[in-house]
């Protein structure tokens, strides 16, 4: 606590000190609860595996997982790639499929929201394709495009494309008429109105869509790699299963989780940077 500029009466100053102390105590207490809870969780897990309540062929102990993680940093055995290779393969795939989805999906959604005729022409097709989960496309894509990178990038593209389009579309649709009228009365052309008003108004929702798309892309990637791949994180956990190595699976799962979280975090940083006008609630 810094010194106060105004002089507080004694009674008030004392109560404030008590309140501040209580609050500090509470946040310390909560942190302690978190730490203890995680520690108990990990301990029980370790204990259950060590003592044999859980078969170590089914689930590895936390310590084993840490060892495997360290080993996988440099050792390509048993499934044929070090962790870095798997990560690079997966990231490359996602960047291609997801990047294409954003670059095509966002403008398409914006235009669909803005131009009525275009909307009515494209929406029905979209509504038909939309409810099919991207994973269900995997066999068909493999038959059409083979088991190479193209098929997987295509599936990831599908997974990310839908939310990009829908959110951009909704964002434009929700532009308040007032803003458009202001632009209209000051003589903006249809295109200018779209570019200066609707596009900007839609941005926060566009970003929500782009975030959702990232989650979809990342989880679809895992599915695609599980079904057909020779490297990548999805391949790693699938091999872990075939080799009955739960430690490999869990290292793979945790890596998938951590990288997914990092990507999401980076994207939200980017959003804050681009959509500055939105007030934080």
């Amino acid at each position, binding site marked *: 606590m810094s010194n106060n500029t*105004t002089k507080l*009466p004694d009674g*008030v100053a004392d*109560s*404030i000190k008590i309140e*501040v102390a209580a*609050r500090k105590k509470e946040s310390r207490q909560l942190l302690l609860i978190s730490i203890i809870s995680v520690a108990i969780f990990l301990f029980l897990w370790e204990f259950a595996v060590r003592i044999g309540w859980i078969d170590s062929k089914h689930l590895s102990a936390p310590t084993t997982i840490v060892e495997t993680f360290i080993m996988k940093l440099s050792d390509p055995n048993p499934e044929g790639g070090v962790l870095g290779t798997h990560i690079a393969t997966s990231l490359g795939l996602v960047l291609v499929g997801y990047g294409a989805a954003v670059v095509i999906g966002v403008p398409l959604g914006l235009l669909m929201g803005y131009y009525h005729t275009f909307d009515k022409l494209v929406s029905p097709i979209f509504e038909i394709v939309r409810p099919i989960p991207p994973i269900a496309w995997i066999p068909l894509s493999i038959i059409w495009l083979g088991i190479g990178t193209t098929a997987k990038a295509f599936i990831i593209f599908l997974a990310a494309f839908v939310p990009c389009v829908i959110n951009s579309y909704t964002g434009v649709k929700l532009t308040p008429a007032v803003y458009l009228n202001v632009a209209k009365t000051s003589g903006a052309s249809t295109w200018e109105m779209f570019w200066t008003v609707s596009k900007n108004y839609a941005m926060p929702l566009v970003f929500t869509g782009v975030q959702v798309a990232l989650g979809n892309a990342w989880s679809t990637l895992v599915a695609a790699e599980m079904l057909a791949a020779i490297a990548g994180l999805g391949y790693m956990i699938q091999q872990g299963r075939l080799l009955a190595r739960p430690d490999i699976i869990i290292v793979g799962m945790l890596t998938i989780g951590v990288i997914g979280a990092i990507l999401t975090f980076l994207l939200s940083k980017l959003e804050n940077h681009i959509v500055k006008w939105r007030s934080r609630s």
Partner: protein
Amino acid sequence: MDEQRVVQVHLENISKSFVSRKTIFEAVNHVTIDVYKNEFLVLLGPGQCGKTVLLNMVSGLETPTDGKVEFLNSDSTDVGFVFQKTAVFPWKTVMENVELPLELKGVPKEERRKRAQYLIELVGLKGFENALPKQLSGGMKQRVGIARAYCNNPQVLLMDEPFGALDAQTRYQMEEEILRIWEQEKRTVIFVTNNIEEAVYLADRIIVLSKCPATVKEVYDISLPRPRDYVDPEFLRIREAIEANTDLAL
């Protein structure tokens, strides 16, 4: 003002500060107020200051950093509260909203329905018992809020800028209504506003609070007969006197 003044709520040297991470915000500073039984007391003060905080302390929602709130001559500390925005629950019907305070007390359904029905009629919402708030106008929602505040039969009613969000016309109408209801069901009212005209129209007594931290600046007894007239010369004189004496930079 002819009846003898019995103190109902006593605020003794109240101060309230809020502590956030790095700063201390003083909202109320050494306020002592006696609130008399069945009076219509208006706390008048500028913008975002300690008025609401004072009400919260009377209601028990917040505790003073220093000083104390006492309820005298009554064994109940129950209060009714009418909120700034309509704090009517949108998921409950008018009836369910009004009877809520009694339902929470565990009063049997038949009894609380009877009481709520009386209050719904008192505030002029007969026929809307089963309506949802989304079907009501802003003024009607605030009527629900008033009926709910009366429901558990509190001796003290706290009103926190209840008409602040209404349009001018509805506001005038509601000011008339609240007086009509209060004449019929007399209670001690502490009414917070930043609108001088509203204060003069409603109050038996106005306490003007200063800017942050809030302190008692001036007290006015308003003895104009009711119903009052906004353009009555005496009304305007009082209004201007208060205006000249306060800096209600709103």
